[in-house]
């Protein structure tokens, strides 16, 4: 296969870097995805992800208006993600209110992003934000993803039992005196940061799929939460490496191919297994 021969070619540093980005982001996709599935907050993650466009648009507008060269869209994206996660977490208590908050931040975030871009002179191609382009990921992004992986692994290692207790039965955890709301906010924040960094890989629209499909696939087999995380990392890595290889060989956009790979893996294995862990 030309993909594998390209990988071993000493000149294709770039392709190897892309692959590393994919493998390291799998760690975040798998662990945060398992949390997202267990707490049933995939639509919350979707809202956080879409609101990011508002932050990116705002930063691009400010940057052009005041000629702030140092201003990176990443800062706007992080701010928007954390803000929307905070709004939903803080004001979205109760199922009905949460649904309204999710819908509102989702759509308003995107709308603001488009408005800011309209107000900014020049033309912007937002396709890479919406659908991701792993080939555009820089060395700095790779470093940030590795730092995020380390933070996430340390956090879930240290608080594993507490996270398990809260995911399994939040009310009981609260009755035992755990600071359930604090952990909820912390984990929402961590989810928001993850979403921002992972958008580079699969884009705003599809990041929700990588936070749900590998973890859901893992849920078909896992017997413990940690096992589910480990399996989700593996399934995520398979989808990303397979997706990069296919998109390289077939010369198609990487983001959508990765998502389709993750989807095919889930549906095929769920059909074989009988849909035990349905979303």
């Amino acid at each position: 296969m030309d993909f594998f021969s390209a990988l071993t070619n000493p000149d294709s540093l770039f392709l190897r870097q892309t692959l590393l980005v994919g493998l390291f982001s799998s760690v975040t996709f798998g662990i945060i995805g398992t949390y997202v599935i267990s707490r049933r907050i995939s639509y919350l993650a979707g809202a956080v992800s879409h609101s990011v466009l508002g932050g990116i648009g705002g930063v691009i507008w400010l940057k052009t208006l005041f000629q702030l060269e140092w201003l990176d869209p990443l800062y706007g994206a992080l701010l928007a993600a954390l803000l929307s996660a905070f709004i939903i977490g803080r004001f979205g208590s109760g199922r009905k209110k949460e649904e309204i908050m999710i819908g509102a931040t989702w759509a308003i975030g995107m709308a603001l992003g488009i408005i800011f871009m309209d107000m900014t002179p020049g033309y912007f191609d937002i396709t890479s934000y919406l659908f991701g382009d792993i080939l555009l990921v820089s060395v700095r992004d790779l470093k940030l993803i590795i730092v995020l992986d380390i933070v996430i692994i340390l956090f879930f290692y240290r608080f594993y039992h507490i996270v398990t207790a809260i995911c399994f039965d939040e009310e009981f955890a609260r009755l035992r005196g755990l600071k359930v709301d604090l952990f909820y906010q912390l984990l929402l924040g961590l989810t928001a940061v993850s979403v921002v960094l992972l958008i580079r890989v699969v884009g705003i629209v599809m990041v929700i799929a990588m936070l749900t499909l590998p973890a859901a696939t893992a849920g078909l087999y896992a017997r413990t939460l940690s096992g589910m995380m480990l399996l989700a990392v593996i399934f995520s890595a398979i989808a990303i490496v397979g997706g990069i290889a296919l998109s390289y060989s077939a010369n198609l956009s990487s983001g959508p191919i990765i998502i389709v790979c993750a989807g095919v893996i889930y549906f095929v294995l769920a059909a074989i297994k009988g849909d035990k862990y349905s979303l």
Partner: protein
Amino acid sequence: MRSEMPIIRIKNLYFSYHDNPVLEDVNLEIDNGELASIVGPNGGGKTTLLKLILGLLKPQQGTIEIFNTTPEKARRKIGYMPQQTQLDPQFPISVLDVVLTGQIDRCGKGLTGGFPKAAAGIAQAALTEVGLGDFIQKSFNRLSGGQRQRVLIARALCTEPELLLLDEPTSNIDSRSEENLYETLARLNRKMTILLVSHDIGFVSQFVKSVICVNHQVIIHPTSQINGTIIKEIYGGDFNLIRHDHRCDHAGHSHHDPLSGNRKQL
């Protein structure tokens, strides 16, 4: 430990969800060492009453004292078994890890955030108590409904409670397991006060000493006085009395009795 000091003391309590009154003018005292059951129809406020006792809900009016303090402060002394419906039946977790969450407040002090050494022993003892000592490594999601129920009771026991609150412990289990369950509860009752919720008055009346009827209002009967009339009044006219082998006192009494809610005068 059976003293006559009330550990639950509820006075003139009102609770409503939005504008729908659920509990009205509830007065209730549960003594230390009691084994009591809350019965009543669905939607009558049984679970709401438990959640008020746990401090998960706040009354609009009236007071609740548990162990002479607020429900929030008394929580650590209460072992609670919720209804299974609020749990994800497919959640990947072992039986041991479910039961260990009863000790979760004691974990996470060290750098590794693990459980203290004694926790596993307490969890094992709690599982043995409910007859599931051999299930420790099994997956929770592969158990039957009745086994899960007992695991959740073991989790409540693992908190080393002084008061055990059980919400519908008899749902999901057949009548033979039900008899076993009540034997277990009678044994546990020597060590702790037990308050359970059940919609099944026929069974509870054989085991518990007093029945607390909750249908918006709370009325307490010694079990000896449970009869068809009372049951009809609690549930409305259509209730089928399945078991006839418990004692009935034909004198009965009215649910509109002004002394209702005060057991001492019954």
